[in-house]
């Protein structure tokens, strides 16, 4: 911490635009506030690619535009044990090979992982949770009723 402060001060002394850039990439923080896991901006982008490969954009929004990568980060940060978080970070590191690759390749990568892979399990489970509970889906696709105002115990299904 002290070292970082010292370096920062050094940059300030040097002045100039280059320093600001260096500073930013040095911090490289995710765009949402997190308390336990140190996700970087790069991790965030990688996660956006990964969640998009699970729920891609079609004629309806995909995971990236629904910001499910941010939701996954939030859940990993708050709702998992440190062992889970560790496994997730490691899995994320390994998946760096797909960075910037086309969707199909990302999907192939995820499919190639073991079914029991902890990283995949958390990633997929949280993406689906975020998707199914998203405002978009609950308002437009699988409608959630906050105030049903009725109960009918015998609705005949017409088919």
């Amino acid at each position, binding site marked *: 911490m002290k070292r970082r402060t010292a370096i920062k001060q050094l940059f300030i002394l040097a002045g100039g635009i280059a320093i600001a850039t260096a500073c930013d990439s040095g911090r490289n923080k995710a765009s949402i506030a997190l308390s336990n896991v140190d996700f970087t901006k790069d991790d965030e982008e990688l996660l956006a690619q990964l969640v998009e*490969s*699970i*729920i*891609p954009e*079609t004629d*309806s929004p*995909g995971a990236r535009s629904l910001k499910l990568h941010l939701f996954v980060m*939030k*859940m990993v940060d*708050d*709702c*998992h*044990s440190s062992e889970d978080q560790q496994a997730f970070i490691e899995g994320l590191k390994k998946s760096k090979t797909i960075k910037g690759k086309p*969707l199909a390749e990302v*999907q192939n990568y*995820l*499919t190639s992982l073991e079914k029991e892979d902890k990283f995949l399990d958390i990633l*997929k489970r949280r993406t*689906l*949770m*975020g*998707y*199914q*509970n*998203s*405002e978009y*889906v*609950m308002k437009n*696709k*699988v409608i*959630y*009723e*906050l*105030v*049903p*105002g*009725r*109960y*009918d*115990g*015998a*609705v*005949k*299904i017409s*088919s």
Partner: protein
Amino acid sequence: MANLNIDSKKERTYDAIVIGSGISGGWSAKELCERGLKTLVLERGRDVQHIKDYPTTNMNPWEFEHRNEMPYQVKKDNPIVSKCYAFHEDAAHFFVKDAEHPYIQEKPFDWIRGYQVGGKSLLWARQTQRWSDFDFEGPQRDGFAVDWPIRYADLKPWYDHVERFAGIAGDKDGLPELPDGEFLPGYPLNVVEKYFKQGVEKKYPNRKVISARCAHISKPEPIHIQQGRTQCQNRTLCQRGCPFGGYFSSNASTLPWAAKTGNLTLRPDSVVHSILYDEQKGRALGVKVIDRNSKEEIDFFAEIIFVNAGAINTNLILLNSISNRFENGLGNDSNTLGKYVAFHNYSARIYAEYEGLLDYTTAGRNPAGGAYIPRFRNLHKQETDYLRGYAAGFGAGRYSYSDTEGLGEELKNSLLNPKLGKWSVGSHMMGETIPKESNYVALDAAQKDDWGIPLLKIAIDYDDNDAKMKKDYLDTMEDMFKEAGFTNIRRDDKWQAPGLDIHEMGGVRMGLDPKSSMLSKWNQLHAVPNVFVTDGASMTSTSTQNPSLTYMAFSARSVDYAVNELKKRNI
């Protein structure tokens, strides 16, 4: 200075004090205020005002930061309350966290608490089945605990009274073991619940499957509109607090009603330390309070005191009310205070599927939760190798599911087009447990809480009777499930610690004999005539029915007696 003290004491003097603002305290307060008594209600937790203090009530699922899941650290820090089915992001603010008010578990006991104005009446499961003489005559017939000093006929008019005001949805089923009441229209059973009912009742004429009776306004009467409440909108998000006042809570119903009389003073953040006893007059003087935040000690005074702190905390307060006359707790001449605590055995569940009636589904949500199977075991006579019996909940639902295999467009498509599954059915047991001297709560001699009040030690456990009853429930229910053609039957016999049923009762039991009980048939301490206990602590035995409605009836009945006696200057 002396005058100031007199004035100050006068300001702290009321006609009546009610300790606790939950389901029974709210009723005591309403009845006292309506009878014209200046009433102080002491609540240890913060204030929660109807609607205004229900921060999550209108939130959609996506508006919860973690989509209603509790963060890992919160669960880790709160192993006890995290076990409660309703402890989620939408209602966590209404539950006591483990560290806030610690207790000593001599045996595992999950003490689930709601310290706020309204108490657990905001959070309860709202099931309201009357008790009957099969319950009140139980201890005498089967030779346990002590005889109840009352019978159903004593309580019936008070059940009528509280039901009319609270709003109870139910069908008139004509069952002596589950007396009918002043009902609003009952919620319907769904097609599979009805199908199960028909099969069971045909094969076993003594077993009934009825619509569960619940404290929901299925159709408002003028008395509910006058309370500012309206029809239940079938949200089943009750644990958040209901903006419609669709279900009964102190916050929506009794407390605002009491306030309207002008006789209510509500003091939140007031942790009751003890009841003050006047050795000369032989009666209670008032109540010693520790302010929750400032830790300041304040005494309040009244002619009569109603203890409605919630079963375990009522025990705590009486145990901590020590005087020369009562060295072991207020009114404890019988040495039964804190003992014979019992609960409901909820430790078995059974699940299955049904592949019939697939041309039907349901719409909306049922606030009653489905069906109720009143106790049929050992009802008219002893039939099994264990005492008493169980009631059961039964429900069927048809849920949508999506194939979550794979990824990409196909997965997305599947998620956006959920399919209706088979019917899921399930049942849970609600077993009567036998009050025993060895199931007790007591004060720890050394450790104290943040307010200088001794920590409670809790030693409550199941016994062999509970194990036998549980096995019978599972066997019997499995048979009925098989006979109904249900498939994929799964028995869940995992023991849960006592407490998690949130039906803890006793410790300050009613009885005919002051030598073996604490309270008279009027819920009045045998030895201290101006102190009344009308919450779960007063229960002599537990029945199988959910107890809250019975606490309400006892509270109203007891206030009526107390006020009459007070006016006659008998107490």
